[in-house]
């Protein structure tokens, strides 16, 4: 699938702003963005429910301009699944085949085979409302995949599920995609879904892609401050660049905290800067002597310990500025005995922290 310079405007605002991207055959592509970023509009344009104001979408080499949704080699799994309540599970899966004029016996055979592939053998005669959330999910996917689309669009299909089931379905979706080899285009506002599932992710904001890349790229090498703050957890520090060498800038916040971070883009001395420090790159120690040598070190006071199994972190306040800072706790169980108001030292490698020229309108606001 190739989108070239696709634009869609709604009454005064641009929902999708001249987007161009391509999705390789057989890959899992996610569009990740906050609500209102235009991702649903983009998906509906690919499905054909709305026409782009300009630009073109091509699927399998053919332009889709003027092709109605019922004639596109694209199927969609809707946010609320949109299973037909007036039909049983088998009829739901066979619906698209019936519309194509496939014979009844063949329809039943193919829909039963598809139900088996998604692990729902024997459910064909059940009513839709007899199924659990995860089973409905699978029916919705089976109903689309039975048509063997070139492209399967998924509109936040896990949004309505509870956390445990969502985690489970994430894995199942990835396995289904691998088993069928169909190209998936998946939209979500949940960065963990996008990172876990995708081969490539486009991070979308205000109708544009901020960054297109592999999940690893987005996480470790964010190109813009938006991506750095949207993908994963990050400590954001706003200040001014007071000096810099080829790679590392020294940043001073308005309340007098100095940190150093890798420069991304062009930053001059005196410019407003946004810096991001991942919680897991920082090292904790009870005293400054225990920190890695050669890194600038800081002192803090424990505010609270956020225990979450492997994702546990400590929230502390930098000693001089009372600035909040989040640091991941090592998985070894070390520091698990930290108590609020304990004094602690921390440091991080400036080469693994990033900074950007501050976005317009955001400079000076602190995270």
């Amino acid at each position: 699938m190739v989108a070239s310079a696709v634009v869609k405007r709604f009454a005064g605002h641009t929902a999708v702003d001249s987007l161009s991207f391509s999705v390789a055959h057989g890959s899992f592509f996610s569009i990740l963005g906050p609500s209102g970023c235009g991702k649903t509009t983009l998906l509906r344009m690919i499905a054909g429910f709305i026409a782009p104001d300009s630009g073109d979408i091509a699927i399998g080499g053919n332009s889709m301009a003027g092709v109605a949704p019922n004639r596109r080699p694209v199927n969609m799994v809707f946010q609320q699944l949109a299973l037909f309540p007036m039909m049983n599970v088998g009829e739901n899966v066979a619906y698209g085949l019936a519309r194509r004029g496939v014979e009844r016996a063949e329809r039943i055979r193919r829909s039963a085979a598809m139900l088996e592939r998604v692990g729902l053998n024997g459910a064909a005669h059940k009513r839709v409302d007899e199924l659990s959330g995860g089973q409905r999910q699978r029916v919705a996917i089976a109903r689309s995949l039975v048509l063997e689309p070139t492209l399967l669009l998924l509109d936040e299909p896990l949004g309505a599920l509870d956390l445990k089931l969502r985690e489970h379905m994430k894995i199942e979706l990835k396995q289904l995609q691998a088993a069928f080899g169909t190209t998936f285009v998946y939209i979500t506002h949940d960065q963990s879904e996008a990172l876990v599932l995708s081969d490539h992710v486009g991070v979308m904001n205000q109708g544009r892609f901020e960054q297109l890349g592999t999940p690893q790229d987005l996480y470790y090498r964010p190109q813009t401050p938006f991506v750095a703050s949207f993908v994963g957890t990050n400590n954001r520090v706003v200040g001014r660049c007071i000096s810099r060498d080829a790679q590392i800038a020294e940043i001073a916040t308005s309340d007098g905290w100095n940190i150093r971070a890798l420069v991304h883009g062009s930053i001059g001395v005196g410019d407003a800067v946004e810096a991001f420090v991942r919680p897991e790159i920082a090292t904790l120690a009870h005293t400054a002597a225990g920190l890695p040598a050669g890194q600038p070190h800081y002192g803090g006071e424990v505010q609270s310990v956020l225990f979450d199994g492997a994702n546990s972190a400590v929230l502390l306040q930098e000693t001089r500025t009372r600035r909040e800072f989040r640091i991941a706790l090592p998985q070894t169980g070390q520091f698990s005995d930290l108590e609020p108001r304990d004094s602690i030292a921390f440091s991080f490698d400036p080469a693994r922290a990033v900074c950007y020229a501050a976005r317009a309108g955001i400079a000076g606001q602190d995270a």
Partner: protein
Amino acid sequence: MRHAPELRAKMPDTAADTRWRARLSLGLLLAPALLWLSALIILPHADLAVLSFRERVAPRKYVHSLAQYKTFFLEPLYWHVFVHTAVMSVIATLMTLLLAFPIAWIIAKLARGRAASLLFIVCLIPFWVSETVRTLGWMILLRESGVLPALLVKLHITAVPVELLYRDATIFVGLVYTSLLFMVVPLVSSLESLDNSLIEAAYDMGAGGFATLRTIVIPHAAPGITAGCIVVFMLTLGNYLTPTLLGGKNSQWFTEQIYAQFITRFNWEQGAAFGFLLLGLSTAMVVLGLRLSGQRFGDVMRRT
């Protein structure tokens, strides 16, 4: 504290008391409706039922008999009018459905806010005028010396003014016009509850407009369609004014026969028997309609 044992002893009583009070208040709430129902519908009908099963053998002398019903089955005119009314009512109901469906679709799915309520008002406007005045308005338009025949002559479509009244088609126009709102309301409510994403999903999976209508929209709206059809059929079957005024004395509407028996012939026994036959017909048609559409009466009535 001294009263505590007494209070406890009274506890079961109090619970029964509360239940009794709840029943009393429910009964009081329902009382006006029940009184209304029994005084104005059940009592007169019981009386009519008794009337329909007797025969006058001499002045002020009556015997129980099935003579009234026998007359109906033996006299071809009555039969003919009965069947004619039933068939016309079914056709009028279907015509109303066909006309109301697109209107309901526009109100439920396409129009937004003000436009939707405006369309509803347009459907309601005919009811601001009394039925008699409304029907007489139709007569002014359609009679031989009326507006429409004159217009047809002016446009050289007909050479002389044509009498448009006193035809079956005219009765249909009047009946559909009167019934439209009662079809639109249940249709709108059932179409509004149809999730748009179901339509999109059908479209996405290759269904065209007609296939979506047949496989998704109509099955979803079936209770509303049935509800509207039942109401419109009952109203049409029992309508007296519209067939009489637009169809004339020869319109052969069964309510006219009932009217004639009660008022013209002063044969209340025969009129009562006709009344019950009409009630039987409308019940039979409703049951048949529910069977054919596979709907349950309770589900359908919740839509009306």
